[in-house]
């Protein structure tokens, strides 16, 4: 979103292509400007809601203190008994998992799937593990068992509570963020080769802040863009498909066991078997979904070093039938897990939250400075109310040997990131139409 006068003059279309940076810069400038203006509002919303989400875990510990925490005491009621107590309160629910409290002051979370709940939402009954008393019932969200407050902020960040249509906003932001960042980075690094002769104007100072801050943020923003895309509706599907084709999928523990009737070791038996096998830390015990299925006990630790091992336990014998170690995940699956946890602020605890906060605040500043620069460029006389955008026809200055591969790369990326591709195509069509119309008016 930053243009200076020299660049603007340089962007006037000419017939002869120039080689190297001089030919590419006007196009990058145009891309950075329009993409920035276009996705700026979406990025602002994502940054503000993301900022709220980062600190939501601390907020929910306070808001839902009664449900989440219990007085420390000796003795523990068996998990099966706690689950039975909860099950009596949710007759229409299907038990999907039980999370024993990781410390003596945490409640047990008994998780149900219930008719009428949105995808990824659960119904959770909180039980005091020392007394077996129910502390409360809440609708929870996702694998992190987000309480209603965090779940609400999560959905706001993801879709603005507008369903699948709302998810387009975050996908657009993530799809264009890396383009804006890379174009901005190239412009800034290219610009640094020059030296200014005169004292900088207020707009030039703003440009310096915009550019330098953007430079510092670049890696973090590229990371957020990449990880955000894995959650997105359409690009996320493409990424999943690509991972399948490259055999980079996240493995899962095999829960198939021989069908048997009679004895069932129960939730406690499954938990104890895995504890003996070394599966410690916060876990979720999932009961067999059907005959011939095992109990699955999965670690839920999301901070570094990630604890995501899982084991399957035969309900009849209590023996461990399969073990999946996080260490045995393929690199892509590990990167995906680490990336998701870092994006959500869980991977490195409070430091992760602080870094994300700084990143979001700085991003908001960079966007506001960008719009401010555009505002400062507006003509003070005449009818025009906005700063003049970079001139059309920048692509004509690029030699075919550069433009052709670039076009193919953009087409491939546009295929895998459909919202990026379609919005770019829409822009090109509108821009081309306006150019043709202007040509007719001039003629």
């Amino acid at each position, binding site marked *: 979103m930053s243009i200076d006068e020299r660049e603007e003059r340089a962007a006037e279309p000419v*017939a002869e292509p120039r080689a190297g940076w001089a030919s590419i810069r006007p196009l990058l400038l145009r891309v950075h400007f329009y993409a920035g203006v276009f996705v700026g509002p979406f990025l602002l919303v994502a940054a503000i809601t993301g900022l709220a989400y980062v600190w939501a875990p601390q907020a929910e510990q306070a808001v839902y203190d009664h449900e989440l925490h219990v007085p420390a005491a000796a003795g523990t009621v068996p998990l099966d008994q706690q689950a039975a107590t909860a099950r009596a309160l949710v007759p229409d629910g299907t038990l999907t998992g039980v999370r024993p409290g990781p410390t003596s002051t945490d409640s047990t979370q008994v998780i149900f799937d219930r008719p009428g709940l949105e995808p990824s939402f659960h119904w959770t009954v909180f039980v005091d593990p020392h007394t077996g008393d129910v502390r409360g019932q809440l609708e929870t969200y*996702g694998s992190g068992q987000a309480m209603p407050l965090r779940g609400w902020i999560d959905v706001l960040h993801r879709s603005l509570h507008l369903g699948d249509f709302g998810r387009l906003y975050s996908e657009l932001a993530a799809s264009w963020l890396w383009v804006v960042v890379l174009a901005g980075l190239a412009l800034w690094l290219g610009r640094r080769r020059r030296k200014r002769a005169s004292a900088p104007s207020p707009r030039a100072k703003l440009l310096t802040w915009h550019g330098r801050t953007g430079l510092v943020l670049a890696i973090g923003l590229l990371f957020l863009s990449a990880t955000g895309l894995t959650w997105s509706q359409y690009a996320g599907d493409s990424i999943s498909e690509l991972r*399948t084709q490259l055999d980079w999928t*996240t493995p899962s523990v095999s829960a198939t066991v021989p069908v048997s009737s009679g004895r069932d070791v129960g939730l406690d038996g499954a938990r104890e078997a895995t504890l003996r096998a070394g599966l410690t830390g916060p876990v979720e015990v999932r009961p067999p979904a059907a005959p011939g299925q095992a109990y699955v006990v999965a670690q839920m630790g*999301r901070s570094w070093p990630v604890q995501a091992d899982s084991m399957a336990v035969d309900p009849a014998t209590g023996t461990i039938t399969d073990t999946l170690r996080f260490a045995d995940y393929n690199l892509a699956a590990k990167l995906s897990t680490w990336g998701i946890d870092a994006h959500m602020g869980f991977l490195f605890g409070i430091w992760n939250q602080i870094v994300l906060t700084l990143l979001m605040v700085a991003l908001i500043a960079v966007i506001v400075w960008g719009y401010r620069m555009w505002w400062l460029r507006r003509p003070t006389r005449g009818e025009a109310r906005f700063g003049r955008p970079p001139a059309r026809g920048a692509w004509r200055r690029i030699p075919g040997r550069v433009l*052709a591969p670039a*076009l193919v790369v953009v087409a491939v990326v546009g295929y895998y990131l*459909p919202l990026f591709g379609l919005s770019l195509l829409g822009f090109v069509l509108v821009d081309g139409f306006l150019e043709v119309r202007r040509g007719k008016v001039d003629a």
Partner: protein
Amino acid sequence: MIAAEGLRWILTVVFVATGAFCAYRCTRQGTVAERVGDVLHVVMCVAMVAMAWPVGMGGARLPQTVLFGLAAVWFAGVAVTGAAHADHGGRRAAVYHVVMMAAMAWMVFVMPRAMGGMSGGGGMTEMPGHHGMAMPVSGVGGGAPADVRVVALVLLAAFVVAGLVFLSRAFDDARASGPPLRFLGRGADGAMALGMGLMLLTMA
């Protein structure tokens, strides 16, 4: 056959557009040799569209293989005699079209073998520790036979390079305000080459 519906439509649009252009050019200009070349391009585009769709997989293989084999011979003759003008790419483009038509004949011939190795399905599983984030589990078929994949990869590389060269020249011609049919022709050649590359990618 292209399994991904989006990609199938993209290929269809590319080959319908380029086929339409070749048909138009055939009616507007060119020597007999060039017009025959255009007709062969139209036939190739129709075959490519058919190849992209499941319904088109039922077509007789042998006649198509023979047809595209003869088309390769035709372009070889054009290359030797120099019967194509600059607007049609001249001698070098004729040599390229020999490779393209031969590749078409090969693709049609090996397609059943290539498709036979691509059966198999994948399932979806939830990411451990991340509910709501479904990730597909691996379950892809064994892929096309090794010999098909090797040839497809070599041809893929060749067509991508050719496509980029054609597109690059099309852009430079368009900028230099050359005859529209010339730069559009090169653009169409580039699009067809990249379309061929896409089809080969599914076999590699």
